[in-house]
């Protein structure tokens, strides 16, 4: 990071000029942007996929309310996935091909799931009433498939896109755990957006899903260094270990806080309803930071670094110019939309 921006000090008429080595800096910036959009995607679509998964546990009369809590958001949430895939495509064209052809079937499964839930979301409200149940089931199934396949891809990627039974088994383990993590996010979102019996149920859902989430994060954290000596050395070298230690410690601490705090939810006057969601988001971010540290500077583990895979600097520059201008605007109006639909989702009756 520091090497990329080399301050050349020139004393021309007493001013200091910084020159940036763009071919080095641009791929780094784009790796950062891509990471950021994956993280935002995982947090945002995480909760709405989670709510889809929770359909399996919810009673029929609760489903409309649950849909009501994600209705205005899910489309925009999914757009972050399009951005992440888009950035991989445009900034690291070489890696894009390698990763997506290696993950051909899980990517397909994910798309299949996303299609199913996306259309079920709309169809369930518009088909004749007696067919609604069918689309509820598909909404749940689609969400689950999408979450599982994302987890599977994470697992296989962490092992360096390795093939074989071991990798597949590990992929399935991570798949389950990511689905659990999304379920926890979904439950946390429900705690924030609903009240009464559904909210109490959501607290119980959160706590059950949390157990598997912890297990999953543990498994990924252990497997990553064990799968690659390079990553092992990065984490377990002496000085690095010291300043890396807060990462796992903070994560563990947050899990503990969440576990203890959620036991007493919901509070009277609904205080701290947003707290579980915030804590989970921070946990996701910490886990993500750990992964990013492990894999840097590779985008295809052990094969292609971000510089080897990057597109031409002049193309990256023109994208960056647009991104720097547009991204703040996007974030601004996204926050606006979340504010417009703030507060509890109303219980919608169906006729």
């Amino acid at each position, binding site marked *: 990071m520091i090497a990329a921006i080399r301050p050349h000090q020139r004393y021309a008429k007493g001013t200091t000029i910084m020159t940036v080595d763009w071919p080095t800096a641009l791929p780094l910036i784009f790796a950062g942007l891509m990471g950021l959009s994956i993280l935002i995607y995982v947090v945002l679509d995480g909760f709405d996929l989670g709510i889809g998964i929770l359909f399996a546990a919810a009673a029929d009369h609760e489903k*409309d*309310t649950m*849909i*009501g809590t994600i*209705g*205005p958001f899910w*489309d*925009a949430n*999914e*757009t972050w*996935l*399009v*951005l992440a*895939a*888009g950035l991989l*495509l*445009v900034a690291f*064209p*070489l890696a*894009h*091909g*390698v990763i*997506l*052809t290696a993950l*051909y*079937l899980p*990517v*397909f499964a994910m*798309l*299949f799931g*996303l*299609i*199913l839930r*996306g*259309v079920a979301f*709309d*169809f*369930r*409200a*518009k*088909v004749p009433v007696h067919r609604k149940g069918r689309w509820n089931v598909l909404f749940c199934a689609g969400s689950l498939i999408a979450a599982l396949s994302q987890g599977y891809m994470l697992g296989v990627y962490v092992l360096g896109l390795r093939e074989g039974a071991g990798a597949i088994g590990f992929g399935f383990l991570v798949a389950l755990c990511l689905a659990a993590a999304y379920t926890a996010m979904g439950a946390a979102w429900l705690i924030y957006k609903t009240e009464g019996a559904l909210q109490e149920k959501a607290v119980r859902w959160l706590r059950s899903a949390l157990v598997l989430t912890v297990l999953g994060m543990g498994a990924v954290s252990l497997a990553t260094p064990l799968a690659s000596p390079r990553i092992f050395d990065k984490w377990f070298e002496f000085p690095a270990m010291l300043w890396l230690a807060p990462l796992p410690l903070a994560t563990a601490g947050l899990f503990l806080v969440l576990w203890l705090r959620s036991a007493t939810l919901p509070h009277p006057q609904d205080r701290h309803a947003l707290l579980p969601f915030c804590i989970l988001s921070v946990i996701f971010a910490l886990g993500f930071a750990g992964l990013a540290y492990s894999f840097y500077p590779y985008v295809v583990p052990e094969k292609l670094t971000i510089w080897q895979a990057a*597109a*031409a600097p*002049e*193309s990256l520059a*023109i*994208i960056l110019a*647009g991104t720097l201008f*547009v991204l703040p605007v*996007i974030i601004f*109006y*996204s926050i606006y*939309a979340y504010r*417009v*639909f*703030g*507060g509890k989702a*109303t219980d*919608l009756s*169906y006729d």
Partner: protein
Amino acid sequence: MDPLILSRIQFGANISFHILFPTITIALGWVLLFFKFAYNRTGNDAWMQAYFTWVKVFALSFALGVVSGVTMSFQFGTNWPGYMETVGNIAGPLLAYEILTAFFLEAVFLGIMLFGFRRVSNGMHTLATFLVAFGTTMSAFWILALNSWMQTPAGFEMRDGVAHATDWWAIVFNPSFPWRLIHMLIASGLTVAFLIAAFSALRYLLGDRAASMRKALATGVVIGAVLIPVQIFVGDLHGLNTLEHQPQKVAAMEANWQTRANVPLVLFAIPDEQTRENRFEIAVPGGASLILKHSFDGVVPGLDDFIGDHPPVFAVFWAFRIMVGTGLLMLVVSWSAAWCLWRGRELPRPLLWLMVPMGLSGWVATLAGWYTTEIGRQPWLVTGVLKTADAVGPVSGSHVGFTLAVYLALYAVLLIVYLGVLVHLARKAAAEGDPEPAPAAADRALSQPAQPAE
């Protein structure tokens, strides 16, 4: 089977499915804005009811457009890795700008447009409707810039087998882009016009005489009648532009095997690539020369100039005939209907019955047009730069075949359900009037009290 063929079929199937829905949403966004303005100006409830009914169709089409679009964004990597490796420096920024300037805009304001009527002011709601319409149009702008660049590349140079941008203005406004953009936007307008007319005609036939139905019917008929002559004119100019930049495509469209003067306009034929001639030909003498060169003895380039380097003739020839034929049918139907409305008559029943299946005519013509364009570009993926066969990925044929089968089954089901829901909505609207839009779960959002300001 050969992964190349399967990959091509899969890509073609996915994009064909995808394009159906943007074709609707691009223009429907503007029609909704028109309903909204008409309501704001006249205060007539019928306009707002028309809005309520059509905003549902919009939401449904949009959802299908989004999920199939998300699939598209992975298709390049999974099926055509060679594509991004060779022209990624050009395609990348165009795709990125589409995501940044169009997708987020649509996706975020769609929520407000669909569910926010009681939560934001009327002005803000109108603005959200505008931004969604604007976003879908921007989306078309960028993706068509890319597609047109693949047809008629400009503003770049090749270094070590990789394309590098030299002039972004020339890349975006490449020679075929303006015509393709205009032709596609009008195609979208026509698709929506005929869809609205069909939906309203169905309601009429079911006995509905609501004012909102009449308003929508008139809107559909008038938009269709106005746009179709423009589209035919623009299509002609588009073809002339193609003649200049991709003559082999036009030769295939006209099934013209020899470069010569006095080329006939072939109305019907079975082009035969083996013998390189047309069987069962019915033609108007000198017609093609007249249309393409504006004189009977104009010399038109034929396929013999491009042996081994021209697209498959049969498919291009017939796709083009289907598009133009559908266009002419649209002209007849919309003008007859417009004439009746002009005279203040009720539309005759046979015409109404004809208008119902014509609701899908926009889809037919659009798909046929795209098949002309895309198959007409073969064997190139990017004209003169990259052959389709060189872009295919290392995925095994069985994987591509399996996923293709699942996609096809899924798309067939979704298409049937989509059309079924449209018919269901029409029947329901005919029986119960235009209900307020179905928001998150139930038909209730607009009857919610406004949230007190926080």
